């Protein structure tokens, strides 16, 4: 098993930041840690020879989706009572059962990794051209389905978010 130094570093950052996301009481702190985790994951994609996925991770995930979350946190205006209640919820008693369940899942997945395929030689960079050729070649139907999904998400978000302040919602 070859341990690669940059991969190990980014993996440690990603796991640590993700753990901090799950354990924070204040929403905006968790969001900032989530941005750190996403950037570390983008670096991991780059190490794995997927630069297109890395750039999209930064632009779409750490850019667009996280900005959406930040806007919602700003609009919700979560104050001190929320923080206190979250702190009362984050007690060791509430963590035991789900922690055991998550550890069991991790053990099962790690056990299944014994059947992982053998190493495949040096990493080959798969650039944007190859991804585009695959995307608009054999996967063109999935592009159409993704556009359906995004349209459905747009329409439902517009419908749900309409008249959000007034009482005149039909």
């Amino acid at each position, binding site marked *: 098993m070859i341990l*690669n130094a940059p991969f190990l570093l980014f993996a440690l950052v990603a*796991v640590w930041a993700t753990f901090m996301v*799950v354990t924070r009481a204040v929403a905006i702190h968790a969001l900032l840690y*989530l941005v750190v985790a996403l950037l570390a994951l983008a670096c991991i994609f780059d190490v794995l020879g997927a630069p297109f*996925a890395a750039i999209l991770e930064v632009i779409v*995930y750490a850019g667009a989706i996280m900005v959406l*979350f930040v806007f919602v946190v700003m609009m*919700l205006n979560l104050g001190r009572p929320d923080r206190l209640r979250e702190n009362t919820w984050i007690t060791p008693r509430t963590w035991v059962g789900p922690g055991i369940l998550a550890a069991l899942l991790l053990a099962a997945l790690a056990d299944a990794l014994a059947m992982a395929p053998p190493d*495949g030689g*040096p990493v080959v960079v798969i650039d944007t051209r190859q991804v585009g050729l695959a995307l608009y070649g054999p996967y063109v139907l999935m592009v159409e389905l993704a556009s359906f999904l995004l349209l459905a998400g747009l329409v439902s978000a517009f419908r749900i978010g309409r008249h959000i302040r007034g009482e005149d919602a039909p």
Partner: protein
Amino acid sequence: MTAAPAQALLLASMLFALGLLGVLVRRNLLFMLMSIEIMLNAAALAFVAAGMRWHAADGQVMFLMILALAAAEAAVGLAILLRLHAAGRPTLDADTGNRLKG
């Protein structure tokens, strides 16, 4: 670096388990949405690692699909969250979401 998929898959498993822990433990809807994003990211990492191992672009195509799914999920989920908040509920406790209407 040689293409060793086991390390990347182990990292994906750890991130997925952490996301599952977040969904199970937290009762704040915002944190549950963030944990779901973490789990989707772990699945995307597994796809990219598999694409790296087989030198195929298909893994990154699936990453794009997961990206579209995550964007749609975040938009709808956050809209529902804002709707619940605007309906006068003081908290974002997921247990009180059964009064959603309209």
